[in-house]
């Protein structure tokens, strides 16, 4: 009864909305101002660190002139150089092992409905929300109780444990959106299971695998808390090294290390966004918003 009345009013409503939009009613200016303030607030501290890393004096208050001495200090310190190498090693090993383990788990979980699979699913998700300090404590306790000396190896094992889940979540999201019939078609056409995975599934999956590999490289390269609890005497990873120098007070060399780490983080993320797009023409998906994979 009232349906025709609604239909008649609709165009009017739309016109009114259109007018409102043109007047800028829906585009409150304070939101834009807030957004700009927010961007300044998030970027300014990092720019301050980067700027003062080129300061010619140790002052944090006055920029007196351009100099590279703090970078020079960084690269001429054997300890710091070893720390950088250690962090890269941790990132690299974690990336390889974590990606392989996480991807196999994603395959196992994507369509499995068994009890064991469901339990593994919960076991896989919990590390994602476990506070890092708990992860560090439990790793430290485990290694000492089984009598393993703390070293780069213990850091790697702990980092791998907490990186598997990231890979599984990202790769599984991609697997879940894939059309199952394509796989079945390959099997019907006489491909073996391994051939199907190698020729049909993996090519479509590469973007997700590479994105998650770079993500866990970045996470484990950058990680402080877990490394702090599981590190041996020397070499210690770069974040641990940074932490101990910050505790001795603000020092200009930290500005230089911070700026270097900032650049490395940005590079890895740029790679994580660019590589999958170059490789997978259709399987584009934003790494940063993994939840949007659907």
């Amino acid at each position: 009864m009232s349906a025709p009345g609604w239909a008649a009013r609709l165009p009017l409503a739309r016109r009114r909305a259109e007018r409102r939009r043109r007047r800028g009613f829906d585009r409150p200016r304070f939101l834009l101002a807030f957004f700009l303030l927010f961007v300044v607030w998030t970027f300014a501290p990092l720019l301050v660190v980067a700027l003062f890393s080129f300061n010619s004096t140790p002052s944090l208050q006055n920029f007196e002139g351009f100099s590279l001495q703090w970078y020079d200090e960084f690269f001429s310190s054997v300890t710091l150089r070893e720390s950088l190498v250690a962090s890269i090693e941790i990132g690299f090993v974690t990336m390889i092992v974590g990606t392989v383990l996480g991807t196999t788990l994603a395959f196992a979980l994507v369509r499995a409905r068994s009890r064991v699979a469901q339990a593994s699913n919960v076991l896989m998700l919990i590390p994602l929300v476990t506070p890092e300090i708990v992860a560090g404590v439990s790793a430290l306790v485990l290694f000492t109780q089984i009598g393993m000396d703390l070293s780069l190896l213990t850091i790697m094992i702990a980092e791998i444990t907490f990186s598997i889940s990231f890979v599984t979540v990202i790769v599984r999201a991609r697997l879940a959106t894939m059309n199952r019939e394509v796989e079945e078609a390959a099997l019907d056409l006489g491909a073996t299971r391994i051939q199907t995975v190698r020729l049909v599934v993996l090519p479509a999956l590469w973007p997700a695998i590479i994105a998650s590999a770079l993500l866990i490289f970045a996470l484990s390269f950058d990680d402080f808390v877990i490394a702090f609890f599981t590190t041996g005497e020397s070499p210690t990873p770069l974040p641990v090294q940074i932490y101990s120098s910050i505790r001795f007070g603000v020092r200009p060399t930290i500005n230089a290390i911070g700026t270097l780490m900032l650049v490395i983080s940005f590079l890895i993320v740029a790679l994580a966004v660019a590589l999958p797009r170059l490789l997978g023409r259709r399987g584009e998906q934003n790494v940063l918003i993994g939840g949007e994979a659907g």
Partner: protein
Amino acid sequence: MLAPAGVWLLLLFAVPMGIVVLVSLGRTDPIFEAVYGWHPGNYADVFDPLFAPVLLRSVTYALATVALCLLIGYPIAYYIARFGGRWKTLLIAAVVLPFLVNYLVRTYAWVAILSDEGLANGILQDVGLAENGVRFINTSWAVIGGLVYGYLAFMILPLYAALDRMDPALIEAGKDLYGNRWQTFWHVTWPAAFQGVVAGCVLVFLPAVGDFISAQLLGGPDTYMVGNLIQQQFLEAQNWPFGAALTIVMMGFLLIWMLLYVRSATRASREASA
């Protein structure tokens, strides 16, 4: 396929948690080695008047952090989701970019700005606003500010994902039906954003409760959180059983939140593969 990673997580994640429980019931021998035993008193110590305020402070700081992240993050996520247009991806990348920098480095940046010899005090003195400088560091607000600056991205991303899925026509419909701004927000936008709000709050709250970097670098003994206490017990005081008891109490407190997240994540992945 399940075996390699499943066994890895079982042996290196689940089992160590069990060992932490065992250690939390032990005690230390004269040379500070942890010995297993049955000493539930460690748990009573956690709630000792000496340490209870630290636990309370951790929860208060974390809740304040969640509230501030929501207050700041919601308008940002809403602005990008509704008015970002074709720049959406670029804007969200710009918002997330600073959060990809090492957390220590980001916290250090605030130390460099807020410390007594830092940039903020330099500017204040130059301008003549505060001759003797202002104490920014070692305050609760510095620690909470550090936490907000550290974890805000965990709020913005789920909020953005939820708001971006919402059909903007719904808001117009709400207004066309003579809802005022508040009513439109409450009956249309908020329900659509709700899942994102819950996810964001959990994802900020969990790491904030366990954080010790912000309180270590931007605070002092008066602002220490449970993370600082745990870290001290394990790496300085060498009282592992007490540190383990603190860890277990914290985990027990956080478990409800963690299960909340696991349940929603399981449901989401089931919907995706269905």
